[in-house]
Every structure is written in C-alpha cells, then in structure tokens.
C-alpha cells in the first residue's frame, strides 16, 4: 500500500527578553541552579504575576511577520497539572484567545517548488524549569532558572508531507524568528524546540490517521531521523494489522528510535480557565504601529527583491536570505562592487560559505569582510585576474595576507592579456605536441582542453582565459 505522511509541528521559541514573562528575574542562560528564580518563579505563597511588555511586542512581531491576524484582546489561562518543574502547579498560557490568531503562513522550498505551510496560531506562555536526573541519592533535582522564561508556541496545520518538508519548515521558522530578533534560536540551549505530530494514512484517504506527538527534537538532524523512524514504525504497525495509539513519544538519539512516554499519558485533564490574576491583554493601534515600525524587511520580501532587483535565480535568493546577516553581507558586497550580483552570489554561496563552514565561522565574524570580497571580485570583473587566480587570492585573503589588490601585486598574479605573449606560449605548445594537434585537426575537439591546460600552466595561470581560447582556436585551425 502507498502511505501518505502527515506532519504538523509545534515549536516553542523562547523570546529573547531580559526578564521573565511574569517576573523581574533575569533570563540569561547557564546561571547556577535557582539563582535566577525569584519569589514569583518559585511560586511563594502570595506572589503575583506581572506581564512583560516586550514579550507581547515580540509575539506581535511574529504574527505580523507571518501575516497572521493579531487578536486585539487575548487572554491568559491556567493549564493545571502537577510536575516538580512547574512551581505553581499550573502553566500560564493562552488557549481560547491566543495573541497570534489564524491566517499566518510560511513559504518553504521543496525541491524546486515553493509550498505554503499554514500556521494555525501562536500563543504566549511561560517555560517550565528543568528536572536534572543525575543521581541525587535516587532523587531528582529541580532547577527553576528557566521557569517563567517567555515562550511563543507556534502551531502549524498538518500541512507537511515528509520529514524533509518538516525540516525545511523548521529551518525557515528558525531563520525567521532570528531574523525578526525575537529568539536567539539556540537549539542546544533549548531556545528553539520542536515537537512533531506524525500520522500516516493510505494515499488518497481524506481522514487523518491517529497521530503521535514526538518530543525532544532538539536538532534538525534528529527531527528528520525521528520522523523517519516514527513513520516506519506506524506503517509497520498498520501493515501488520495493528492500530496506532495516540500518545506522546520521546526521540532517543542514541538508539535512533522513538519510545512511548507513558508517564505523560495519564489523565490529561488540564482544567484550563482564565487566569484571575491577569487581565485581558489588549493590543491597541499604537502598539501595533510600534511593532510594525521596528520590523525589519522580511525574508520573503527580500527574496522577491533579490530576484527582481538583482536578477538572481530564486534558489540563490532563498539561500542568501537564510539569515539577515548573510543577506546584509550579500547586499554590502554587491553595493561595493556595483554590478555583477550573480558573481557575488556565486562567491558567497560557494567559496566563502564553504570556507566558513569548514573553519567553523559565522558570516558575522567572517575573516573576509563584504567590502574585501567585493574588492576581489572587482579584479575578476575588470580582467585583472581570472576566476582561478581569484581562488588563490581568496585563500591568501582568508589567511590574513591583506586585500586583493595587495596580494595580486605582491604575488605578481596580474593576468597576462598581452596577445603577443599568449601567442608565443601557444606557438611553443603547438610546436612540441604535433600528435595532439593532428588529433584536434582530425575532429577530436576534446583535445582542446589539453592545450588550454598546458598554456595555463605555462603562464602560471595568468593568461586571460578568453584571449587564450581565441588565440588557441585560431592557431589550431592552422
């Protein structure tokens, strides 16, 4: 049987505020346990929540960025359950009236086509603390530093059809929240966490299959593997005549499998009700205008502009708008160069990205600044050096030997465009390779490359390639 995979993602993105959503405790990561848990965070008797304005601003920015309707009046509710990392015995969250309502979408690239993923809602809530399971005489340690960190939970429709689509969406979302400056996106530190709702159904069937929620997908790689495993598991169960039990499953990266979290299954009756300690959150016109005013150009708009203004292929535009920093680098370099945006794009996506990846740098701390790269490309455009020599210059620039012009001068890499000099090299090569000349002349034009190679070698790579081609062709023609 052919199976269709159906995936919806729920993403918890920590909002990068200075203080917590309902208290004035700091949110910085990595502090000593419970040193950033104030009276409100540890839920002392009598303390009360006071809402952080910036959490609302960031959530609204997200809503605007995905084109969703913003609920002008949203309501905090209590989700009641007992867990040691949840000090109040309830999580303050939004249920019936989330701050970001329906209508939002995110475009993802699937192969060579675009796909629209619908975002159902995004709501504000507080993060829980952490349970540390190292052995404390058979007990669990509770650190409440993270408790009360603001989150938005972003929920998609079940629009994704493969693990690759899920990863593509997650990456795009990850890029977006960083782009608009609402989340640092640090997955190791848990700032951006995804849960996947996975089900399968026979191809062509309308109704959704029973889904399982997979937790602990703390990297894109794990997300892909976990979904793939879960899909295989569900198909096997169904093909063996079994049925899927709706449950929460945890991905175990060490064993590359998902397993049932039975402890979370019992009696989920969260008894939501509006939090009497918090009044309705009202987003007025002024608030919205402020959020709009501080919104950077969005990746989708920038992508379209890169295609229309710079004539880039959609693929390039997509890659270059993966982060605001990368896009800025591209725009800086292109502006300095003044032309040849495609050449810029090629170098950034090619040599520069490869080198950054290899050496573990980010675009923001690239050893070669945008202006410097433009300086190098300028010399390709004006024919001073060939593309091949440019790679050598690039390596020297990376090594910190200076700007392109200085390196070209110091190493004598200026391209030979003197036709007399090139003709001389060509004539010598033709003279000592009569057999290959005969071959070429008998119609085996492939041999042409052999001559190019020899000539380039003889010129130490400096021969102007176009000129060399022309002269070679003429001379070989006899």
């Amino acid at each position, binding site marked *: 049987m052919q199976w269709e995979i159906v995936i919806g993602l729920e993403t918890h993105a920590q909002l990068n505020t200075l203080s917590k959503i309902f208290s004035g405790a700091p949110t910085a990561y990595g502090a000593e346990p419970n040193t950033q848990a104030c*009276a409100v965070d*540890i*839920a*002392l*008797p*009598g*303390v*009360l*929540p*006071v*809402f952080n304005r910036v959490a609302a601003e960031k959530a609204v920015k997200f809503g605007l960025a995905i084109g969703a309707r913003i609920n002008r009046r949203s309501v905090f509710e*209590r989700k*009641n359950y*007992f867990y*040691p990392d949840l*000090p*109040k*015995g*309830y999580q303050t969250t939004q249920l019936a009236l989330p701050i970001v309502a329906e209508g939002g979408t995110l475009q993802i690239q699937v192969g060579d086509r675009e796909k629209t993923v619908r975002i159902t809602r995004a709501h504000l809530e507080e993060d829980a603390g952490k349970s540390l399971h190292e052995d404390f005489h058979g007990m669990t340690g*509770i650190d409440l530093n993270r408790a009360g960190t603001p989150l938005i939970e972003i929920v998609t429709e079940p629009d994704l059809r493969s693990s690759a689509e899920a990863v593509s969406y997650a990456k795009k979302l990850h890029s977006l929240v960083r782009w608009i400056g609402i989340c640092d996106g640090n997955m190791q530190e848990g700032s951006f966490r995804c849960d996947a709702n996975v089900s399968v159904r026979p191809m062509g069937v309308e109704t959704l299959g029973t889904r399982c929620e997979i937790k602990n997908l703390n990297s894109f790689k794990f997300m892909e593997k976990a979904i793939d495993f879960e899909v295989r598991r569900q198909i096997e169960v169904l093909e063996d005549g079994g049925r899927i039990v709706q449950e929460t499953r945890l991905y175990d990266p060490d064993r590359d499998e998902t397993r049932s979290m039975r402890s979370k299954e019992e009696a989920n*009756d969260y*008894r*939501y*009700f509006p939090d*009497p*300690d*918090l*009044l309705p959150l009202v987003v007025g016109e002024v608030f919205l205008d402020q959020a709009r005013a501080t919104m950077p150009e969005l990746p989708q708009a920038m992508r379209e502009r890169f295609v229309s203004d710079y004539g880039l292929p959609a693929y390039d535009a997509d890659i270059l708008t993966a982060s605001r920093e990368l896009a800025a680098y591209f725009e800086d370099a292109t502006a300095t160069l003044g032309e040849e945006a495609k050449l810029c794009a090629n170098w950034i996506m090619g040599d520069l990205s490869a080198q950054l990846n290899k050496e573990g740098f980010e675009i923001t701390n690239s050893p070669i600044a945008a202006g410097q790269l433009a300086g190098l490309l300028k010399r390709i455009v004006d024919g001073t050096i060939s593309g091949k020599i440019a790679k050598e210059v690039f390596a020297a620039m990376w090594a910190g030997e200076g700007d392109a012009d200085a390196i070209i001068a110091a190493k004598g890499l200026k391209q030979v465009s003197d036709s007399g000099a090139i003709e001389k090299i060509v004539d010598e090569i033709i003279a000592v390779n009569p057999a290959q000349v005969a071959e070429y002349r008998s119609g085996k034009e492939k041999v042409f490359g052999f001559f190019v190679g020899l000539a380039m070698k003889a010129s130490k790579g400096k021969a102007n390639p176009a000129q060399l081609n022309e002269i070679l062709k003429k001379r070989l023609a006899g």
Partner: protein
Amino acid sequence: MINTSLKELSAQLALKKISSVELTQTFLGRIRELNPKLNAFITIDENKSLAQAQAADGLIASGQAGPLTGIPVAQKDIYCAKGWLTTCGSKMLHNFVSPYDAHVIEQFNRAGAVNLGKTNMDEFAMGSSNETSYYGKVKNPWDLDAVPGGSSGGSAAAVAARLAPAATGTDTGGSIRQPAALTGITGIKPTYGVVSRYGMIAFASSLDQGGPMAKSAADCALLLNVMAGFDLRDSTSLERDKEDYGRDLEQPLKGLRIGLPREYFAAGLSADVAQAIEAALAEYRKLGAQTVEISLPNSKLAVPVYYVLAPAEASSNLARFDGVRYGYRAPEYTDLTDMYGKSRAQGFGAEVKRRIMIGTYVLSAGYYDAYYLKAQKLRRLIAQDFTDAFARCDVIMGPTAPTTAFNLGEKSDDPVSMYLSDIYTIAVNLAGLPGMSVPVGFGANGRPVGLQIIGNYFSEAKMLNVAHQYQKATDWHTRIPQGL
C-alpha cells in the same frame, strides 16, 4: 486605654503621654492574659513587636510620625510578613517563615505601625466560623461557646476583646464583614483592587480583598488610608490617586437614600437580627436618611455561583503547596505522586480538601461549561443587579449575617449550612463592590448583630461617613464583652 480610638491614641503618642512601647506592652499583656481563652493569635513575637515600637518611638521623638506611627495592629496570618511565621491557618505552612513582606505589611511598616502578632483564621480563609484552623478554634469573646465567625475570626476576636487596637482581615465571601458582625466590631472590605493582594496568600484571586477591622468606622478610615494604594506587583491593583478615606466622616446624612433589598429581609433572617437592623434603620431615618425598597433579584444565586467560582480558583491557587519548595512534606512516601498526595492530604484540613476537590471537579473536562462558565455568566447578572439598584439609592443596607454567632461545633459537620451563613455578603465580592459591617446591637442570646452597608464602586469614604454618623449617635461600637 484599650477602648481609646486610634486618633486619640495617636494624639497621646504625639504628646508623649504614652510611648509606643508602653502601648504595645499593654496589648501584649492583654494577649498573654486573654489569648489562652480566645486563641485569637497564632504567632506572637514580643521582641519583634517591641523593637518596632521602639523604632516608632524614635520616629515620634524626631517628629516624623504619621497617624498610625506607634499603633499596634494585629495582622491576619494570611499576610506574608518577613521573618514572621505565616501559616494561613494551615499545617501546610506550619514552618513557613516568610522571606518577604506583603504590600499591606510594607504599608504598615512604612507608616511606623507595630505588628502586634499574627491572628488566627480559617485555614486558607476557607470557613465562616474559624473552626477550620489547624491552630485551633477561635472563641467569640462575647460568649466562649460561640464562634467568632470567619475567616478573619482571630482578628475579629482580638479587636472585640481589645487584645489589639485594630487588625487586618481579608474578605473573599464575607470574611471581614461576617466575623465583624458576629463579634460586634466594624470592618470594611474595599472595592476589589483598592488594596493590593501582593503577599496576601490567595484563596480566590478574583474575589479576595484585604481590609481593616477595628472598633469604629473612624478607625477603619485611618487604617484603610494606610492599606490602600496602587501596587505594580498586583496586576489587578487599581491605579488611582491616593485618597483620604476619612475626608467625609463628618458629612451629615440628610437626604441619604438607603436601599433595602427585599431579598435580604426575607425568610431565613432570624427575628432578633431583623429587629436590631430595623432599629438601626430607624436611627438612620432620625439622622435624615430615607429608605427605599429595592430588589436584587439574583441574590439567591450568589451562594451557588460563589461555591463554583471560589473553589475553582482555589483548586488552582493551592496547587503550589506541593511539598517541594517550602511548607509541609509528608515524612514517608513511595514516589513523586505519593509524595504529592500524602503531603497535601496531611497538610490540608478537611474543608480545604473539600473545596479543592469541588473546584477541581467543576473545571474538569465535561463539566466546565455547566459549572464554571455558567457561574461566570451568573456572576455578571448578580453584578448587574447592584448597578441597577444604585440608580435608586446611595448605599444599600441589610443584615450582615442571617443570625447572630452560632455555637462552636453547631455547623462544623454540615458544610452546606455553614456556607449559608454568608448568604448576604457573598454577592458583594462577586460584584467587586465595597461592603462593611457595623455593630447595631445584640440578639436574643446577647450576641452582637451587624448591619451591612454596601456602597457603589469606590464609595468607601461615603460608607465610612454613613457608619461614622451612626456611631456618633449610638454607642454599640463602644461595648466591650464582660467576664473574660
């Protein structure tokens, strides 16, 4: 000295006729002597109180005294006070020494008042008789066989027996007014949001409100001046200009329209209470007021609505008491769930557990709409009744409680009959209105009767004026229980 008004005590302190230390010692002495009979206090810390008194004397000496500087005030044990055991009447918090001050406590500290001790109360403020306290029943100073009312019964008994010049209470469904009525003192629950709930251990957040309990309306005004005030740490605290709640005390009552809700004078009201209330109303007419009959048609729904909403909020508010970060943890348990279950089963008393369970039930899947949502809709109808009524009158009056103080143990086995003793007070909390109780005489059994005065939103100064004018014309509020 024990029957002296706060204003007079303050004047004597200012004139150095008496020091705060002496005043505090006087009341600490009375507590030592009489508290064993009344059990009005859970915690007394003479050294702490006297240190504050000494500091107050310093302020007075240096001319920095305010109206409450040096005045001892007993604090309901629901208010967190730094360094003080704060139990909320529960075993759950038997060892909870608060690391911080409630806003109300801060306000009293700033005013230079002396914390005279923490008063007994129904556990987590759930009760109308003060019999649910883990620290024992409080007795009514007028009759040691009678309950003092609740939940602020310790504060009420302390003021009534003059163990304290004044005290604080909180009122979720009548917990200031009903014990004030049952012990013959004056107490006011302000408009919801006037007194910050920060540091006041929550029972039902949308209903809880702190307020003063004292010998007279004039004293209440002075206390409310200190207790009220905007506090950023409570999102429901109202951002309003500071006001002097005593500013209108001396206004004459001529032309005052008193609304008498038909439903508050119907079946269920005992005859002796009705009689004392009628006499008080006659006194008001003498003072120039006129009475009009009004109706609060949804009154009978107040108790049902309250016993859905308050337990629902409580079930969630009390979830933090789980034996993890503070408070009681069961000595033996097998696993996490067992630790939670046993700590809460052993740490909470019967009434608290009942209310948590009812609250859990009405919020649970399948019942939310029928109970919780329904109750919230009816809450609006109840509030609307008052809005309509205030179009026809300036204040509403009626009995605070249907009977005088009942006997200890009389209703403790029948929660529902206990709940009905708040039948006249609950609607005020649901609407968020201010309400107060003023002593207006005694019932057939010699136990006090309280008149309830309900005002429109933010009309506390008017209500205190209405109460004060009556107290100038009568002496019920000066009566002290004999034979203690």
